[in-house]
């Protein structure tokens, strides 16, 4: 199961890199979202997937899953959600202001003389 997840993470990150290398701003943003999905899936699978029951520790608990990666992934999802939302709004604003979503036309060379 972990090996399958590792392959899925690899595929997600490959697609993310491909998208982020394109010129269109919207594709780049989708790429960053996929990249963080890959990172989160990796975070989820690090402590073993079929470890046992719910992460509850009782006096007689024989098997339980490590709750820490789940807490981490929750935090990381919230953060990447916020950043992606901000990024989308910024992209829209930049499109209004600059009139393009092509990264090739956003080089900006002033001040480089």
């Amino acid at each position, binding site marked *: 199961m972990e090996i399958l997840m590792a392959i899925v993470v690899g595929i997600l990150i490959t697609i993310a890199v491909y998208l*982020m290398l394109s010129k269109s*701003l919207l594709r*780049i943003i989708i790429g*960053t979202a996929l*990249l*963080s999905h*890959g*990172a*989160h899936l*990796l*975070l989820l699978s*690090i*402590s073993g997937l079929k470890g046992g029951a719910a992460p509850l520790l009782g006096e007689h608990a024989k098997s339980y899953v490590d709750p*820490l*990666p789940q807490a*981490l992934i929750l*935090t*990381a999802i919230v*953060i*990447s959600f*916020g*950043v992606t939302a*901000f*990024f989308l709004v*910024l*992209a829209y*604003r*930049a499109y209004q*202001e*600059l009139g393009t979503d092509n990264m090739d036309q*956003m080089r*900006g060379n*002033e*001040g*480089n*003389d």
Partner: protein
Amino acid sequence: MTNLLILPILIPLFTAIILMFFSKYVKVQRGISSLSTLATIAASLVLINTIYNDGIQTINLGSWVAPFGITLVSDMLSALLVTTTSIITLVVLLYSFKSIGADRERFYYYPVVQFLLVGVNGAFTTGDIFNLFVFFEVMLMSSYVLLVLGGTKAQLREGIKYILVNVISSALFVITVAYLYSVVGTLNMADISRKIAEANQPGILTAIAIMFLLVFGLKGAIFPLYFWLPGSYYAPPTPVLALFGALLTKVGIYSILRTYTLFFYHDTGFTHEILSMLAILTIILGCIGAIAYWDVKKIIIYNIIIAVGVILFGVSTMNPEALEGAVYYLVHDMIIKAALFLLVGVMIAITGTTNLKKMGGLIKEYPWLGWTFLVAAFSLAGIPPLSGFIGKLLILRGSFAAEAYVGAGVILASSLMVLYSVIKIFLNGIWGTPKEYNGISKGHARYLWMTSAILVVLAVCYGFGAEAVRPLFSQAAEVLVNPNLYIDAVLKE
């Protein structure tokens, strides 16, 4: 156990929340944010005093015992950096009153600066590797807002690139933490260090060390990961630029310093060798940039990159004296970079241009500005007895003791290049024939100059009083040399 060390994080946090309710009352915002930053400085000074007398301070949040909950740890290094950060923020706030413009002031400039302070102080204080990621994100989110606030074309364009770079580096940070957790099974930094020492750092941990270098190197702008910095830092207005230049890259450097002295000190032949080579290349490429440009902002921006290289080279030698020098130079560089950006900002505000070829003769109308800039420039280049000299002297003595002659030579040569690049600003911008300018009025310029002069005076005192503050820096370096002090303070209570 004391709650003192959480104050430099909590005070700015609550101030930011309160300020959001007063966004249309500019004067109220100015008053509250300066008072609360003063309170932050006071708290951090008391913290330095407490650590000096009683040793490392820790606090377990939610009373979960050390390796299980989130621990905040303040050793001398953290406390010194927190204090410097708060002082710089106060001066930049005073400078902003007359330079940032009413529009930005009404659109949440002051709350966002306080959130930035939360992120930076938190990153310096935390003792938990995932919590470090969270504080990084708090800091980055505020920096995104500060970078695009105002919405000019250059800001939006550079903001996109800056966010993209940082989103990628954040994803890498999460991946690296995931790997580290799967190997050592803990997130508490002291506990990680103990577990790595027990396992004697197998090969996989060395690979993780290189991934950490990648993540923090992107934030701290080392070669070859500094490519985003000159463009992004060029876009925002002067006070924001000063905050970024003085604080953000330094958080990256602090994280490398912490992880490479606390976690990965077993296989220095590999990891620290790479760090030292990258540091040398960073210095060389920073020098090329600083010499090449005729734009005052760009020259100082490339000087950030040189300083990153100098500090990290001091870290890479792992010599006690060089580490002490690196810490001293880190604090020096925060102060002097903020001062230089603010002074250059005054020049730009007066002349209305950033191009050196269109400036000249400022010394006739603004003599005080000229001489203050000269002192700051000498301090940056490291002319004795100013503060840059003492930091570089310690780093050089340490590297000679560690027989790292190439790096020592490059640092010495870079000092000349730094001197050349800032004297170029002095000769062409401040000396020379006066020209007609239609920038800000003289009284306005005097206010901006006076606030930036606070930092220059501080830098001069820091250099002349080096002997007096030396015990603090020895104490900071002691923890870096001997990680067991840190581990014992966190885990054995």
